[in-house]
C-alpha cells in the first residue's frame, strides 16, 4: 500500500533533468518551451531541476557524441533510481541527420537504456508531453 502510494506520488511528481548530448539545441529549446505558459508542464507536477541527483527523468537530446558517451553513462549512474530516460528528437532516437557522423556514439539507446522515444525534429512540445504521458503509463 505504502509502495503503491509512492509510485502514485512518483507519477504525479516527475523532476526532469535535461541532458543535451550533441543536439542542434532545437529540441532543448522545445523542452524549455514545455515549461512556459502555453504548455506549462508544472501542471503535471513536472519541474526542471539543475542537478541530476534530484531528477527522476533524464530528457536526452542529441546524438550522443563520443565525448559525451561516458559522461552520459556517469550521469545515468548518478541519477537516483527509480529513474527514467526519455530520448527526445530524431537525433536521440536514431541519429537523425547526423547519423553518419563520425562523432556519433549513439543513438542514445546504445549508451543507456531508454524508456520512451519521442521522434521528431524537433518534436513539438505537445509530442513531448504525450511522450511523458506514455512514460507515466509505463511506471508501475
Amino acid at each position, binding site marked *: 500500500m505504502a509502495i503503491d502510494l509512492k509510485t502514485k506520488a512518483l507519477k504525479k511528481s516527475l523532476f526532469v533533468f535535461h541532458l543535451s548530448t550533441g543536439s542542434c539545441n532545437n529540441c532543448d529549446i522545445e523542452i524549455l518551451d514545455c515549461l512556459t505558459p502555453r504548455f506549462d508542464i508544472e501542471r503535471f507536477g513536472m519541474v526542471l531541476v539543475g542537478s541530476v541527483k534530484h531528477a527522476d527523468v533524464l530528457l536526452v537530446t542529441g546524438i550522443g557524441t*563520443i*565525448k559525451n558517451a561516458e559522461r552520459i553513462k556517469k550521469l545515468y549512474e548518478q541519477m537516483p533510481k527509480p529513474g527514467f530516460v526519455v530520448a527526445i528528437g530524431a537525433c536521440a532516437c536514431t541519429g537523425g541527420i547526423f547519423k553518419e557522423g*563520425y*562523432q556519433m556514439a549513439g543513438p542514445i539507446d546504445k549508451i543507456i537504456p531508454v524508456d520512451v522515444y519521442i521522434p521528431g525534429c524537433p518534436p513539438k512540445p505537445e509530442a513531448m508531453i504525450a511522450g511523458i504521458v506514455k512514460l507515466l503509463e509505463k511506471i508501475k
Partner: protein
Amino acid sequence: MEIIEQVKEKFKSKIKSVFFHNEKRVYLEIDKEDLIDVVKFIFHDLDARFITASGIDNLKDMEILYHFSLDSDGIVISLRVFIDRDNPCIESITSIVKGALNIEREMYELLGIKFLNHPGLKRFLTDEFPEGFYPLRKDSPGRAEQ
C-alpha cells in the same frame, strides 16, 4: 575598389594575384612570409574586421583563406595563402588579431596546421580522438584507428 588599389600599391609585388569574384568579393593571393605584414595593414590601417580563416586541404598543398570584412563597404577580402602540406606551419596572426585564437586552434585540430607563436595550440573539439587525426584532411583515414 580604391581600397584594393591601396593594398596593391602598398605591397606591389607581394600580391601575387588579385581576383575579383564580383565587386564585393576579392581574393588576394600572397606568400606566407608576407602574411603578417598584409594582415597588419588590412586589420589596422584599413580597419577591417577579421571574420574567420578557412583552411583547405588541396593534397598538393594546404590553403588558408583569411577573410576580412570592410564593413563600411560590405566588401570581403580573402587573403589566400598556400603552405606546404608536409610541414604545414605558418605564423599565427593572434598577435594582431586576438579573435583568431580559437579559429587557429580549430584549424590546428582539424587540419593539422601548426601556427607558430600561437599561445595555446591545444585541441579542444576532438580531444577524445588519437593524436595525429586530422578529420578535415582529404586523405584522412576517415575514422580514427581505435
